[in-house]
C-alpha cells in the first residue's frame, strides 16, 4: 500500500514538473487536518485517554485545457491508504449545459455535492453519519463513475439548477472484514445502470434561500467477497433546504431510502435527516448545532449487510477561522446508535493550501 501512496505522489509531482514545460499551468492545491477525539465508549483500554489522528492529505488539481475541464483529487487516508476520489473530464457548452465524465460525487442532496474530503470547507468536524463516505461505513452511494449533465437557467421565479446522471450502480463488498459500499470503479456488477437527478431553485422572492430535490435509482448487488449475498432494487429520494439570513445559515436534508428485495418482493423504506444551524460572528467565530437521525427497518437486507442501525446524534461545536485557509473546531457529540448511548469530544485543526 505504501508503494501505491508513493506511486500516486510521484505521479502528481511528475505532472507538476511537466507543468513547467507546458503552456498549461496546473496548480497543486490541497487540504489536510489533524484531530483529537475522546469517547466515553472507551472507558477502559488503549483509547481511554483519547486519540490524536491526522486526517486526510487531499491533493487536488484542476485546469481547463483547450476548453476541456480536467479535475483530479487524490486522497491519502489513515497514513497509507491511497484513494483516487475524483477524476473527471468536462466540457461546458453553456451555462445551461455542462457535461462531465469520470468519477465524481453523486448529485444527491446538498451536503454531498457541497462538501467533499477537505474538512476545512465543511462547517462541522465530521459529515452527518448517514452521509459518510462509503469506505467509512456510509450507507449512501456518495461517489459514482459515469456521466453527468448539469446546468443552470434563470426563470421568472428564480435561478434553477438541474442535473442528470447515468453511471455504474454501487455494490457491496468486504474490506478488512466488514461490508462496505463500493462505487464499482472499473466495471458494473449488475445489468442495470444507476440513474440520478437533481434540481434546485433559488427563488428571486426570498434572497438566500435554495430548495432542492434529488433522486437515485440503482440495483445493488454484493460481490463474491460478501458471505451473505445481497440484491436489492434501491430508490433514494431526498429534499433539501439551505437558507442564509444575515449571519445565520440553516441547512436541512431528508432522505428516504427504499430497498426492494426482488427475491421476496418485500419493500423496506428507511429515513435519514439532519438539520444544521450556524451563526457567523465577524467572519471568525462560528458556533454551530446539528441534529441528525436515521431510522431503519431492521429486516432490510441492504442495511443488515452494511451493519447500519437506528442512530440519533446531536452535535454542538465552535469553529474559529484563523484565516481564510485555516480553522480550529471543537465539538461535543451525544450519540445513540442501536440503543447504545455515549458522548464524544473532538477538536480539529484543518488547513487548505
Amino acid at each position: 500500500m505504501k508503494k501505491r501512496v508513493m506511486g500516486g505522489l510521484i505521479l502528481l509531482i511528475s505532472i507538476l514538473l511537466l507543468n513547467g514545460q507546458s503552456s498549461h499551468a496546473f496548480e497543486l492545491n490541497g487540504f489536510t487536518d489533524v484531530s483529537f477525539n475522546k469517547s466515553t465508549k472507551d472507558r477502559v483500554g488503549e483509547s481511554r485517554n483519547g486519540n490524536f489522528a491526522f486526517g486526510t492529505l487531499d491533493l487536488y488539481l484542476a485546469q481547463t485545457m483547450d476548453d476541456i475541464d480536467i479535475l483530479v483529487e487524490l486522497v491519502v487516508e489513515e497514513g497509507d491508504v491511497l484513494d483516487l476520489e475524483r477524476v473527471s473530464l468536462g466540457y461546458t457548452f453553456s451555462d445551461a449545459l455542462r457535461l462531465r465524465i469520470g468519477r465524481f460525487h453523486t448529485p444527491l442532496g446538498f451536503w454531498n455535492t457541497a462538501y467533499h474530503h477537505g474538512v476545512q470547507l465543511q462547517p462541522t468536524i465530521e459529515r452527518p453519519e448517514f452521509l459518510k463516505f462509503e469506505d467509512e461505513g456510509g450507507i449512501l452511494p456518495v461517489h459514482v463513475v459515469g456521466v453527468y449533465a448539469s446546468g443552470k437557467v434563470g426563470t421568472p421565479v428564480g435561478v434553477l439548477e438541474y442535473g442528470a446522471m447515468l453511471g455504474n450502480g454501487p455494490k457491496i463488498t468486504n474490506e478488512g472484514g466488514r461490508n462496505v459500499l463500493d462505487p464499482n470503479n472499473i466495471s458494473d456488477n449488475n445489468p442495470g445502470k444507476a440513474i440520478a437527478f437533481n434540481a434546485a431553485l433559488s427563488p428571486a422572492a426570498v434572497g438566500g434561500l435554495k430548495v432542492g430535490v434529488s433522486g437515485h435509482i440503482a440495483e445493488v448487488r454484493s460481490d463474491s467477497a460478501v458471505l451473505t449475498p445481497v440484491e436489492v432494487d434501491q430508490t433514494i429520494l431526498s429534499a433539501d433546504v439551505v437558507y442564509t439570513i444575515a449571519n445565520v445559515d440553516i441547512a436541512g436534508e431528508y432522505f428516504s431510502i427504499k430497498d426492494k428485495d426482488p427475491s421476496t418482493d418485500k419493500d423496506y423504506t428507511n429515513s435519514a435527516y439532519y438539520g444544521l444551524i450556524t451563526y457567523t460572528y465577524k467572519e471568525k467565530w462560528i458556533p454551530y448545532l446539528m441534529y441528525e437521525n436515521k431510522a431503519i427497518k431492521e429486516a432490510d437486507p441492504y442495511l443488515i449487510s452494511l451493519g447500519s442501525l437506528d442512530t440519533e446524534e446531536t452535535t454542538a461545536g465552535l469553529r474559529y477561522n484563523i484565516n481564510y485557509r485555516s480553522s480550529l473546531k471543537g465539538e461535543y457529540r451525544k450519540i445513540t446508535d442501536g440503543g447504545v448511548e455515549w458522548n464524544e469530544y473532538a477538536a480539529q485543526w484543518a488547513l487548505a493550501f
Partner: protein
Amino acid sequence: MNNRVRWGVAVGFMVLLLWGNAYAIARELAIVSNKDFPLNTITVAKVKEIYLGEKLTEGSVKLKPMEHNDEVLKKRFIEKVMGSSIDGYKAYWIKKFFQEGIIPPTNKASSADVLQAVAQTSGGIGYVWADEVKDDGVKVLLKVEVGN
C-alpha cells in the same frame, strides 16, 4: 503683488484643490472585455456572477475572467464591485475550485498585462483603472466609481 493677482492665485489654488479632491473621490475602475464579448455594456450583478464563477458563458463566448495583482486595485474591486472582503473572496474561491472544478480568475501582474491579455484572449474580461484604458483593442463595458 496686487489684489487681482492675489485673487487669481487663490482661485487657481482652490480650483486645483477641488480638482484634486474630486479626482481622489471619483477615481473609476473600468471593466474591460475582448471585442468578441457579445454585449457592449454589463451590470455590476453580471460582473459579480462572472467573477464568482456562476456565469461561465455569454452567448457562445466562453468567459475568461482575469484578476489584477495590484493590491490596491484588487481590494477596491473586491470590496466595491464584488461586495466582499478579501478573505471572504479568497475563501469562496477555494471552495468553488474544489467543489466544482471551476478555475478562478487568472492573475495578471499589471494593468498593461491585463489589457494585453484581454485584447488577445477570446472571452477575456478584466478590470483596470479607467484612466489607464487608451486605445488598447478592448471594450469598456462598465465604469464603477470606487474612490481613490
